[in-house]
């Protein structure tokens, strides 16, 4: 019964929503796709948040209790959670001067101030670190260990030159030489890094991307059908 009910529900709703995608009446567009889908997800999400916060609290508490390595961070996380929740929910919306409000989550609230001045810059810091990670990963990926890696290295070098002003400068310089030396052949074209880069991105890159997208689409459909028809039961946990 524990498995039959979810399987029956998934099958019923799966079939209904499959057809809803091809029907354009108000029942499928407004009721199924907006009222039910969006609202139910919100309701489930609300309960899931309660469970998630409990989980977060529990994990941090256990780590602090066990004095696990770096448990000071768990303290920070818990304090952060309590402070932010207090400002958002518990404290009153009283004016504290400088146009700021103590409680609530409005633009001029302390909650928003903390978010904008601590959370957002920290997120930006994480994002900016990506540049260095790319350099480190690119170094490893572009080592010419075999033919494929060598091809990758050459392609990457062309694309990189084509994406910076240097590429255009080289082409301009070579075009100048071309006009004096063998002007009947446009041999400077092989230095048109911008053009070559664009070609690489438009033709081979798009073609391979589309091939992946086709596979992904088929895989997505197959996964959905596996779940709808109850062939795949891993999402229920276990197999039987």
């Amino acid at each position, binding site marked *: 019964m524990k498995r039959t009910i979810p399987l029956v529900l998934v099958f*019923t709703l799966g079939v209904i929503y499959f057809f809803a995608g091809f029907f354009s009446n108000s029942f499928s567009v407004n009721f199924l796709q907006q009222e039910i889908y969006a609202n139910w997800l919100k309701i489930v999400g609300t309960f899931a948040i309660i469970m998630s916060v409990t989980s977060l609290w529990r994990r941090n508490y256990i780590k602090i209790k066990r004095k696990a390595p770096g448990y000071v961070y768990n303290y920070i996380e818990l304090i952060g959670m309590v402070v932010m929740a207090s400002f958002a929910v518990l404290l009153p919306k009283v004016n504290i001067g400088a146009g700021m409000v103590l409680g609530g989550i409005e633009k001029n609230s302390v909650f928003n101030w903390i978010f904008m001045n601590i959370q957002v810059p920290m997120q930006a810091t994480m994002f900016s670190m990506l540049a260095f990670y790319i350099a480190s990963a690119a170094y490893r990926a572009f080592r010419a260990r075999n033919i494929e890696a060598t091809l990758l290295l050459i392609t990457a070098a062309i694309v990189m030159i084509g994406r910076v002003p240097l590429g255009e400068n080289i082409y301009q310089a070579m075009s100048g030489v071309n006009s004096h030396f063998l002007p009947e052949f446009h041999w400077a074209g092989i230095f048109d890094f911008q053009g070559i880069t664009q070609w690489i991105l438009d033709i081979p890159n798009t073609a391979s991307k589309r091939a992946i997208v086709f596979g992904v689409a088929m895989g997505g459909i197959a996964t959905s059908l596996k779940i709808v028809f109850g*062939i795949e039961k*891993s999402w229920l946990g*276990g197999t039987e």
Partner: protein
Amino acid sequence: MRLRKLRVILLMLILLTVPIFSEKPLEVKAIGDLQLEDYKYDNAASIILKFKLSPDDFLSKLKLSKDGILRTSEMLPDGNMVEYGLLPNGTVEIKKDGTTKNVNMTDLESPIRNDLVKFYHIYFKIGQIKEPFNAEEFSEFSNISTIRIAKNIYSYKAKKDLSIINKFRLPYYKTDDNYYYIRFKGLDDLKKSYIEDFENKIKVKKGELTFENKKNTIKKEILKLKEKYINNKKKLKAEKDQDIKKELISLKGEFNEEVGSLKSKLQELKKKKIDKEKKNEIKKEIILLKEELKKAKKDFAITFTVAAESKEGMETYCELFSTITPKVEQINLDKLWIFLFSIGFIIIMLLLYNSAKKGKKLYVRAIAGLSAVEEAVGRATEMGKPVLYISGISYITDIQTLASINILGQIAKKVAIYETPLIVPVNDPIVYTVLREVVREAYVDVGKPDAYQEESVFFLTTAQFAYAAGVNGIIVRDKPSTIFYMGSFFAESLLMSETGNQVGAMQIAGTASTTQIPFFIASCDYTLIGEELFAASAYLSRDPLLLSTIKAQDYGKALIMLLMILGLTLELSGIHWIIYILQNIPD
């Protein structure tokens, strides 16, 4: 077997309900100089109009008569974004910096107007307007402190043929060959509000009629009280006990008071008294309103006006009368080919599933990344270090997340057998609740429920880079021997996988996000590319029934390849119908 029968019954029931929701086709009549090239109701509530103008002309006016519901941005079939909004005609009272002024909506300053458009769209539904509206509660409306929309301007209650001002921002999409696509949305809400207005009107009229009934009820009550008064008087005369006499006298006073109040009510009603002629008039009005309502429910018509202006200032226009009761065609024929393909795919899948059930062996090519899963878990067990599983940062509605959930089910079983520690930090609350159950059940399934640790699956945060920072912290502190990245990833993919690489973990990634695949290839030992992610769960389980679905995937791809070759051949031979079909399939 029972479940199978149940499925067939359910399918039949669902298919039987389809005719209930069927709707008749629509009608559009065009009047005017401007020529309407084409129109299409793309769903129940929106219409796209297509016009062609000469290169010198430009669109100058767009109108939707009767009433309108706002919209902010819409994606046109061409993939271009338009933003526009509708506001009801009238004035708004704006309180700003301590002063109050009434401003016509057309004369609003553009930042306030834009805010109002947004606010109206988000918080107003006709007939459900809460006023006064305090804009301070909504941080996004920073330009206005208080907005109050006058009562009589937002619906038909005051003005029946209220025309909607359409100050569109980027109202249309123009193609290179001077075709204009214009979308009007919210037609169903329009109809709903129109009908509600009629119903309210009928209610008011009926209320007027009930005055007469109320009057009669009051008269009856007065008579009853008078009877009681007379009885009381008789009792008073007969009674000799002084105390009871006092009580009866006080009751007399109460009666007088009650009668007095009822009489004043009666007088009030008499003021509103309507004669028979008026009563009949109201009755007739109600009948007319009811007829109109019936008509509106059946054939609700609205008018679109599209006007173009030439360089010389000459204006041409087109008015479109549309009956939107039937709203749309029942089946979206644009998606017919997708429907047929899907049905074909389902049939192939079920056939392969049945043949696998009968014991037919299906060949599935080896996938290096998945073959390495056993080795990766074994490595973690030998090293006594945990296995870290990242399920992506998307929602439960993402098919990649669903695939990831299925893969975790299989990996958790392997981990449970070896009793290797498992760490699953999760990004989304709903995904967290599902993953927790999946891991718990996996431990139960292999007979090791005691080995399951509640805190092994935990919620970290919903913020993208905070999540990446959290995962990096876990990688650096716990130094997992094996890390799986399965699901939907964005810019955080490399931040996590590169950290994993630096601590020397064996990393297996799988994603269908094409922009992240190169990063995973660069930093992970094995990467499942695109479709392999969806095949992973079946591959790991080695269940022939599940493997049959991978086979179906391959057949689907073969079909697409065949179509591509056919299309190319036909196109080169000058036959264009297949390209026409493919180009007309919506995204």
